[in-house]
């Protein structure tokens, strides 16, 4: 079949083209380039490292401490942590106001914070992505409706509504997660809408349509992979947002309920004694700060490496 081409005068030239192509293909694949960029980005590496450590801590909390985070000992309350005088070597980070091991609560608390962040981001991600993608892909009336809903959602004061709902339903871990999940979808919707709009008009999407791809296939296989980086970035930021909001709700007394060892709750409980035993809020506060910092750095880093020209 390509005989005619080979036979033609520029067969040799064609052969050389192929050689150049062979050279050219040494430039790395998108995955390899991504890996290369990731490891050149300190913030991202730090974020990944810290987050990995925290996830491992959460997973293996029972192996890291022999204490149970719920067992109280009223005779051994508020023992100071190891760097202070009078500490108990059995409780490295001391004990809280009910004599529970602070280290154990901190370690198990990682589970709570991560679960809240991850599940809330997942719920809001599903809602927001569905809405954003629908609006971005179909445009027109669908877009009008979604944009309107986004506006309504943005107009509602999150903290206030979350407080009200939690006050109504009572603050269990599940309620807090669901409420946050139902409230934090706006950024997903906004970002997905605009990213999908950008991709929607690219020619490879038209090509896929012309090939005869169904709408679900176009969305899932042509559009989503190209907006996934934005989705992941938003997901990390919203995860951090959810963790901070839970902490704020717990701080205001309308979040996760005790004795759940949530970091926000630990700050809220430790706050009572903060002027005398500052470490009670310093320890969970710093843990929370580091977790959120790591997640944010991860998100920022991902944004940088997937769109290096758009750091901001």
């Amino acid at each position, binding site marked *: 079949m390509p005989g005619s081409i080979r036979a033609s005068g520029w067969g040799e030239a064609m052969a050389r083209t192929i050689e150049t192509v062979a050279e050219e293909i040494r430039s790395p694949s998108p995955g390899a380039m991504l890996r290369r960029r990731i490891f050149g980005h300190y913030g991202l590496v730090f974020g990944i490292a810290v987050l990995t450590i925290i996830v491992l801590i959460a997973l293996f909390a029972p192996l890291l401490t022999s204490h149970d985070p719920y*067992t109280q000992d009223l005779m051994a309350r508020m023992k100071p942590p190891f760097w202070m005088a009078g500490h108990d070597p059995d409780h490295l980070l001391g004990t809280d106001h009910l004599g529970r091991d602070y280290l154990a609560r901190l370690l198990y608390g990682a589970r709570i914070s991560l679960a809240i962040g991850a599940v809330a981001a997942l719920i809001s991600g599903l809602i927001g992505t569905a809405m954003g993608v629908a609006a971005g892909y179909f445009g027109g009336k669908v877009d009008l409706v979604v944009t309107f809903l986004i506006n309504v959602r943005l107009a509602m004061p999150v903290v206030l509504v979350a407080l009200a709902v939690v006050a109504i339903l*009572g603050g269990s871990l599940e309620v807090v997660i669901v409420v946050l999940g139902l409230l934090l979808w706006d950024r997903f919707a906004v970002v997905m809408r605009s990213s999908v709009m950008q991709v929607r008009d690219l020619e490879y999407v038209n090509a896929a349509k012309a090939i005869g791809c169904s709408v679900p296939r176009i969305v899932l296989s042509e559009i989503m992979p190209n907006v996934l980086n934005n989705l992941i970035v938003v997901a990390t930021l919203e995860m951090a947002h959810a963790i901070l909001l839970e902490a704020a709700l717990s701080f205001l007394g309308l979040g996760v*309920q*005790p*004795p759940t060892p949530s970091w926000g709750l630990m700050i809220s409980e430790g706050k009572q*004694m903060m*002027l005398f035993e500052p470490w009670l809020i310093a320890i969970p506060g710093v843990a929370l700060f580091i977790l959120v910092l790591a997640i944010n750095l991860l998100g920022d880093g991902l944004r940088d490496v997937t769109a290096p020209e758009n750091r901001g």
Partner: protein
Amino acid sequence: MKTRLLVGSVAAVLAFSGSNALADKANDTLNVAFTKELESVDSYFNSAREGVIFQRSVWDGLLYLNQETGEYEGNLATSWQWVDDTTLELKLREGVKFHNGEEFDADDVVYTVNFVAKPENGVVVQRNVNWMKEAVKVDKYTVRIITNGPFPAAFEYLAGPVSIYPNEYYAEAGPAGMALKPVGTGPYQVESVEPGKHFVLKRYEGYHDSPKGAASIGTVDIRTIPDVNTQLAELFSGGLDFIWGVPADQAEKIAAMGRFTVANESTMRIGYLELDAAGRSGDHPITKAKVRQAIAHAIDRQAIVDSLLKGKSKVVHSACFPTQFGCEQDVTTYDYDPEKAKALLAEAGYPDGFSVDFYAYRDRPYAEAMLSYLAKVGIQANLKYLQYSALRDMRFKGETSMSFQTWGSYSVNDASAITSQFFKHGAEDFARDDEVLAWLNAADTSVDPAVRKENYSEALKKIADQAYWVPLFSYNSNYVFTQDAEFTPTPDEVVRFFQVSWKQ
């Protein structure tokens, strides 16, 4: 609203130029903090502790309870006697003037009593006033108060929550006006009110010769600061002189600092577990007496008192505050005995324990501590921490099987203020014990102290036997104030500003 907003903003900006009134002995101002926003300073239209404190300083009752002797003394009344079981005649003090200059006489008493006794006027705490039917003027300085049936505790209320208002002013201003510009006869007059936020009291120079005694400090500046930490921060940085309700741990630390006086006094408030023995919330293990007794044995109340409440708190065994009239102390007690608790549970058919919702509205650490004790004997209690009104709603509907409650009896030193409140088949009665009801009815309506005492005793004994309640502990309050001030707290948890003075 827009214009008002604007004006408000401007005013707030202008206020920047003013400086923070510095608190101290030097300018004779006592700076104190309320923890809760007071819904209304009209003493009949709030139900908060802060309201009681405010009321005691601004208004007077007809009688006065001497905290040291426990005797009733005349305040706005000079003498009083029961004409019959339901009629109390009082002679009023002459020459008393309200803060606005209005003269005090029988008309004021009649107007006040008749106003508050009418349920449709919506006095918030009805039990403070609903025992009165009406007041009748006999002459300018003599009135009769007619009660709805015999009411032995009447003096307690007349010396407490029933404050006398100026009839002319109140008729005109009403509760709304009174809330913004309160007028009374008390040792302090109100200089300014920013609802919920900020109140300034000035010594009433024309205060009559009351057993309360005249105020010593010129100005009391009250701000609402919800957060204990902020209160402490203000205290440390000199913005406040006097706070109370300081949690035990903090009070201990402050006492150790030596910069402030820390005083501890018990209060009439007790904490208890309310158990749904009657099964109002459905069929669950708690309807079984053995289970309730197991719960009583499971909780180390002494440890909670020693570690968490501290101060003058004590473990209580009876469903009332020990000093209250009729509060029988010789009742069945339940020691901390987890093994026995487990055995009782096994006997009741729950060798592996059970799971139950545990409601609470305050003192989360105490609730958590109890949770942990219950867990040790196999009772998996899930804490549901609600706002007071929400929890009360649920309790009224009988939806709670177990809740951690507290009750302060309005500082009324009589068992009727607590036991009768909760065991007379009302919405908050989870025992529904007819026998108890009968005893309490007898005790509440008799004027014979012996009869009352005996009936209360029977009721309380049965309550303890059946473990309808698990009485836990009495509360205490910590008062922290500048070393310049002198103050002796009272067990009724009422801060009487007029009894605070500067150290000489």
